[in-house]
């Protein structure tokens, strides 16, 4: 597995955890255990995303740091087979 795929898989794993905690917290806003887990996975996600962006480019347009060419439009798009 190459580094790009490995990092993206990590990000998706953290996103999954964060999404489920998000939905749980919506109806259990006082749960300190869930709040602590949310912060934990948020930090892990930030590290993984920063690393991904620095090596492979933006996941969202506002993360772009291009000077020469707008790399946002580069292939592959998410629905395209690898």
């Amino acid at each position, binding site marked *: 597995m190459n580094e790009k795929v490995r990092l*993206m*898989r990590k*990000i*998706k794993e953290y*996103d*999954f955890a964060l*999404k489920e905690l*998000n*939905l749980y917290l*919506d*109806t259990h*806003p006082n749960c300190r255990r869930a709040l602590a887990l949310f912060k934990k996975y948020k930090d892990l996600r930030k590290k993984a995303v920063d690393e991904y962006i620095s090596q492979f480019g*933006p*996941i*969202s*347009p*506002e993360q772009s740091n291009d000077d020469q060419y707008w790399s*946002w439009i580069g292939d592959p*798009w*998410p*629905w*395209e*087979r*690898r």
Partner: protein
Amino acid sequence: MWQYEKKLQYPVNIKNPNAKLAKAIISQLGGPDGELAASLRYLNQRYVMPYGEVKGILTDIGTEELAHVEMISAILYQLTKDLTIDEIKAQGFDTYFVDHTTGLYPIAASGAPFTATYFQSKGDVITDLNEDMAADDAHT
């Protein structure tokens, strides 16, 4: 507002095109229990909800359903890519292809186009949450 992220919620990498399968799976995009109906149901119902818990969860689930729309669409795109005309006819995809080629268009497996009649929005928290549980096949 919404912010796009250039990634699928879960990866989709289909090796073999299969238009016959796509004809069934398309209901999960534009059918009565599809992701599009789910997303629009939650995102329309949320405005008049009286509690933060409900405004929050309808916003966040409605948003997640949009990610599901994209995954189902990726499946459909990959299942119908690079088909020959003979394969399109043999797999019964010609009835779709004549109107849309391989462009994505939200319909039910029956061919009925997507319609807002697939969901309700009644402005009442109990009524709408019951509709949501029925739509999501949830049990209390």
